[in-house]
């Protein structure tokens, strides 16, 4: 993709780039970036339906850089979740590889990777017990053996979401869907991830909870803008414009970035 690259350099666009197989045949990997490797970089990552052999996600290149807030829209069933789960390495890939800070994510690093590149699902899955039990759960895992649960910090996060200090003692079976999602998000945020992969986290929430989720994510991002990034899948155009500066679309398993494509066409015309 020489055209692609020249363009990147000449326009100073260091934001990530989407080049689908259909668009570009040759890809030099990894793409050069003066300021260093992308936070997460997908190279020809693909997913297939095991039974029917159909592409769920066509071979896709994608780079997410620190400081980026990407938002992904597209019809339901188009493969948005498949793509996000592929980025989270939650499903076995049927092709391609992921790089994290320029290094391939090997079997030994996969747990470590998932700790830092956190995936939040649409329907929160909490454990039985109290909110605090749920926040303590990650610290029982080997990946966090050096970390300790910080109740003050958790309370501060809940306060930012408009929940009182008694919230930690609540039983998860009494929580509303919105509250459960806030718990799931705080459970992730307390662990200081580098990137958040948000899979329609507010799709089934009341407006108040949705705003709380957005505020929590924004607060986390603003703490260290230069080191953090998000990919947010959303159905809601208003939300999409709020939570993302970089717009991606997914259609029938093909990821596109309209702005990048427009730039490419423009570049080719010149």
């Amino acid at each position, binding site marked *: 993709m020489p055209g692609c690259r020249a363009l990147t350099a000449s326009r100073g666009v260091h934001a990530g780039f989407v080049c689908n197989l259909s668009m570009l045949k040759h890809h030099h990997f990894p793409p050069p970036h003066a300021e260093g490797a992308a936070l997460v970089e997908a190279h020809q990552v693909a997913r297939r339906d095991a039974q029917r052999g159909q592409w769920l996600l066509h071979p896709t290149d994608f780079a997410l850089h620190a400081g980026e807030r990407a938002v992904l829209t597209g019809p339901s069933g188009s493969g948005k979740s498949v793509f996000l789960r592929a980025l989270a390495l939650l499903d076995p890939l049927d092709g391609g590889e992921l790089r994290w800070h320029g290094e391939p994510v090997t079997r030994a690093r996969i747990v470590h990777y998932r700790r830092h590149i956190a995936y939040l699902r649409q329907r929160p899955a909490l*454990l039985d017990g109290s909110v605090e039990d749920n926040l303590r759960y990650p610290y029982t895992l080997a990946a966090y053996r050096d970390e300790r649960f910080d109740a003050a910090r958790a309370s501060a996060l809940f306060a930012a979401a408009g929940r009182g200090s008694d919230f930690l003692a609540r039983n998860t079976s009494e929580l509303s869907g919105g509250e459960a999602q806030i718990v799931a998000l705080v459970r992730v945020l307390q662990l200081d991830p580098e990137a958040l992969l948000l899979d329609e986290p507010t799709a089934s929430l009341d407006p108040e909870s949705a705003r709380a989720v957005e505020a929590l994510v924004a607060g986390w991002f603003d703490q260290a803008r230069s080191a953090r990034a998000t990919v947010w899948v959303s159905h809601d155009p208003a939300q999409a414009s709020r939570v993302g500066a970089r717009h991606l679309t997914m259609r029938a398993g093909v990821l596109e970035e309209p702005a990048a494509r427009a730039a490419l066409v423009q570049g080719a015309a010149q």
Partner: protein
Amino acid sequence: MSPGVLQNLGIGDVAIAALLVFVNGAVSVLLKLDLERKLAWAAVRTVVQLLAIGYVLGWVFAFNRWYVVLPLMALMTLIAGVAGAQRGARTYGGQRADSIVSIWVSAWLVAAVGLFVVIRIRPWYEPQYAIPILGMILGNTLTGVSLGVERMMQELTARRDRVESALALGATRWEAAQASAREAVRAGMIPTLNQMAVVGVVSLPGMMTGQVLAGQSPLQAVRYQIVIMFLIAASSALGTVGAVLLAYRRLFSPEHHFLVARLVERRARG
């Protein structure tokens, strides 16, 4: 009838008992259970299978060669292994092989302890001991294995969201699966534990009854039964743990993916 002499049963005596199947038939007809066909089939199978095994065992006992006894034991084990994989609404590729392996290893290991260390049979393949004892161990191990693996698949399906959330947080595959595996092993071991708790009080085990009928002193019969109970308990525990771990290895990849697509609904038979 003097002690030590067994009352021989003629074909006519057996036929009288077999007529009792009409009790079941009447229940089925009166309550519209629609089980007549199944009942008839089950009754025929009981008679044919037992008559057949009677002839086979009679011949094997009389012939008394290791190269006949061992293949027969292997065949019994295979049948138990296949039956152990036939339970439940779901299955996974390789379940039958896993079932055969776990039942084979656990039952033969424990049977060897029972036959060579405890009972000390001579010659080492003495079919009069080896075959019925292996048979009892197999029957109970197969129950444990099939219940355990069925529960494993149930738990993983029911807890899928939690399992995936745990993985997304950075749990290893074992950390994500262990709650389900524990429940599964528990489910597999419960029948044996229940049986051990009521043996002699509620139920008189078949083997003990048989020995007493054959004229052995109840005290000797009880000792044999105690040995058998512990052999059964050990083998079903071993077999259940083995089968659950094998299922775990099939359903979770070394890259810490939960391979949920491998869990498939069993096609209804017939």
